[in-house]
């Protein structure tokens, strides 16, 4: 059975520098408002002590994708390895997938009047290369893993991440650990 892959987002290593987001734009030279990968700031007190934390998210390539179900023209297909592909040719720009996706991943391109989203650099991975965001991350904070093997400390969600039960995303997270703090505002 082909291995099912997904993103591992290690927010403990991530320093919120947006290199992944810009590496993706640089690879595909997209329009500025199109952001296939976004670095979301986490609420500062979501891990006990206050800290600046981030989660870098693109498409979660869900196991039962809401976009695929909602799309009236079958523009979405899920590959053997789990990557959810979107076909530019089939899309008619009805934006139904944008409503259905709990993670607001599909984006409407005003020029092509169609929706587009991250495809986990399927072509690069087929050539054995890492996705542009993974290759571009200076902290090696994001990687592609086989979701079958359990990575130490990997969880299915982060505080603030929409309920994973809806579409069963393949993205796995590692929570940041915040060290001891000697503060003067107690």
């Amino acid at each position, binding site marked *: 059975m082909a291995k099912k892959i997904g993103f591992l987002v290690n927010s403990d290593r991530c320093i919120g520098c947006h290199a992944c987001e810009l590496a993706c734009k640089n690879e595909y030279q997209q*329009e500025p*408002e199109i952001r296939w990968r976004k670095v979301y700031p986490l609420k500062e007190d979501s891990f006990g002590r206050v800290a600046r934390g981030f989660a870098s998210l693109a498409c979660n390539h869900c196991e039962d994708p809401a976009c695929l179900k909602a799309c009236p023209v079958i523009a979405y297909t899920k590959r053997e390895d789990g990557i959810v592909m979107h076909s530019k040719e089939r899309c008619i720009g009805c934006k139904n997938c944008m409503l259905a996706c709990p993670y607001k991943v599909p984006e409407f391109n005003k020029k092509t009047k169609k929706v587009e989203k991250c495809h986990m650099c399927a072509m690069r991975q087929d050539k054995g290369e890492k996705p542009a965001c993974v290759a571009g991350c200076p902290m090696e904070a994001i990687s592609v893993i086989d979701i079958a093997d359990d990575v130490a400390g990997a969880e299915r969600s982060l505080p603030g991440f929409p309920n994973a039960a809806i579409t069963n995303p393949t993205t796995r997270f590692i929570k940041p650990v915040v060290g001891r703090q000697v503060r003067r505002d107690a």
Partner: protein
Amino acid sequence: MSNRTFDRRTDLAKRYSLYSLFKQYYQGDWELARKAATAIQQYEPVNDNLSSQQDQNLDAAALFEYNRLFVGPGKLLAPPYESAYRNAQGLVMQEETLLVRQFYLQAGIEVSNKNAIPDDHLGLEFEFICYLLSREGERLQADDSSTANRYAALYQEFCQQHILSWVYQHCDDILAHGKTGLCRDTAISLVRFLQREEANFLSKEEFV
């Protein structure tokens, strides 16, 4: 020479000279642009004579406005680049510019200062049209109407695929930001001329 080809040649000559005036207007040098703009008014008079009297300080204002619209150094108010209107952020040397480059190449033409001046600069696009029209005229003279028609078809294709897809918007920007008569009148004349060309394409559909 049947009078039909004769009319076609004089019409072609008029269009050719108008295009070369617009080319001169857009090639960035203010003196040439000013002369071209006044010449254009003879061909395509914008008859509200209010704006026709040009005195000295109005002329300086026109120069600064011309630069603010097309040249710089700040953000261009009406950038004379097709990519400025075809991709959201007006980035040059992207897909749009390269499509224009392929079109030039089809006709055996390329930008002499390649990769320094974006291929889709309006001055260059008009120059390409002048080249096509001149080839058509030359072929007509040599009575080789089949090649002439093909140049005319190439011109029409280039106009529809590129010029008409953005120059109207470009002229709207000029009218929105331009205050002095000169730039505004040239923009109005350009719009009228292109509209006639467009109408001309439709009527020519049955003719060719």
